[in-house]
């Protein structure tokens, strides 16, 4: 459950939105589109507990303070933000995960085949090879990372915008599988990626308009 009540947010001196309200039911899938720079990422980061609202209230999965909210959500951003560590560490982020669960995650994230083809498999170090990774592979590692955390709420910020058609399709497929039964907020500039979503909003001038 996500509830935003009269939420306002200002960067130092730039107001991004004012008195924004939104209610998303458990298991609902909501899409947000809008011109670049209108504040979609900011809203998502706010919902992820990365920022504190200037005013208003938000309740995300029963929590209302950013430090607790951050534990209740998974975010997939435009850039995968990988660390110079092994694939395993990038996925588990140092948390305990059983091998069986990890195997299933790799399959669901569409990266098992690729990882198995690497000489060092999941222990492959991503430090210097991060550049050799395709955007799709990197993004699917980020998805596997989110699958590991496995929260009820999933926030997606243009997860495929940096990818070509084929890679985007593979990433979307993994995301579709992952979103089953979850509450999803998906920000994108491509409406066709929001097929089957319960509600779609257009963000403009700091407000959300139902499509």
């Amino acid at each position, binding site marked *: 459950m996500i509830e935003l009540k009269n939420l306002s947010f200002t960067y130092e001196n730039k107001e991004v939105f004012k008195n924004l309200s939104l209610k998303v039911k458990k298991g609902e899938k909501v899409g947000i589109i809008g011109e670049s720079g209108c504040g979609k990422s900011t809203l998502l980061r706010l919902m992820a507990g*990365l920022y504190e609202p200037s005013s208003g209230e938000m309740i995300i999965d029963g929590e209302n303070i950013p430090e607790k909210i951050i534990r209740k959500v998974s975010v997939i951003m435009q850039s995968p933000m990988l*660390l*110079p*560590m092994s694939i395993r*560490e990038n996925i588990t982020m140092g948390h305990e995960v059983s091998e069986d669960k990890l195997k299933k995650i790799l399959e669901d994230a569409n990266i098992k085949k690729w990882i198995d083809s690497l000489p060092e498999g999941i222990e492959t170090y991503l430090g210097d090879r991060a550049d050799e990774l395709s955007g799709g592979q990197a993004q699917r590692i980020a998805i596997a990372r*989110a699958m590991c*955390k496995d929260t009820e709420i999933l926030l997606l910020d243009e997860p495929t915008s940096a990818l070509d058609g084929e890679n985007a399709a593979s990433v979307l497929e993994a995301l579709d599988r992952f979103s089953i039964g979850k509450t999803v907020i998906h920000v994108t500039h491509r409406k066709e990626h929001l097929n089957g979503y319960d509600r779609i909003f257009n963000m403009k001038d700091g407000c959300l308009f139902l499509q």
Partner: protein
Amino acid sequence: MKVLKILIKRNKFWIALAVFTALISNLSQMFFAYFIGELVNKIETRDTITFSFLAVPVILILSNAFTQFFNQFIGRLSAEKMAHTLRVGYAKILLMRSSKENCSVAAAMSVAQNELAQANSYLGNTFFDITGMAFMGIIATVFLLFQNVLLTVILIVPTLLILIYVVYSSRKLSGIVTAAQEEKAHMNKTAYAMIHAFPSVKIFGGEELCKETYNKRLQGWKKHFVKLGRLSSLYNTLSGILSRVPLLILFLAGSFMVIRGDILIGTLIVFLILQKSLTMAIMNLPNWFANFKVFTTNLSRIDIE
């Protein structure tokens, strides 16, 4: 290396002047030793010593002091000029690059900051001192060959044997220097990536993992650094002890030759005075190698085609 060539080319005049003053300063030192030898010879043979003869060392001492001062001054100046060329040239390239690739100058500059600072300090502190020492070694060798070929060979051969040891150890050192540098770059990269990916780290609770990984890198670098310090001090101590061996041999062989009447005592004295210039230059080669290696590695790291 390309950068170094450009640096030298752009500062030809100052470098040439530094070399010239070093030459004069070293030569006056050589001739002073030669004069002492001659003086001892004259005393030995009870030859008359004129006042004009005694004026020579005064001139030599003065010219040595003056050129040495001048050389140090010019040396520092050319080091500063080269460092300046390096900084300005680099800033220019960064500016060009940042406008082309749309990254900030500050970000690119901070990445290269370490390497630039180290290259600068090397140019300012080490480059001219050590190069000057090597230069002095070469001049001393040539000068001594003119005095007595056999005795020069007797001095050089054991020194060369030690040089082989020294080259071996410096090879080993430079390998470790490179490894330590890479480890450090690795460490910086890890820190940078962690800052860049901070939102993800926070959302997925990776703070512990990041701390651990960074500490691991830090330990790795520390290990290399400690090893480097330990090995270089070991090698330097050993070469310190070995460096006394040529003097011992020179003294024994030289005294023998004097007693046999092959050379004058003055010649032996010239050798005893100047042997240090020669052996010290050779003994310092590993430092020269190690430092130069760090310098060129730093330069190549900021080398932009």
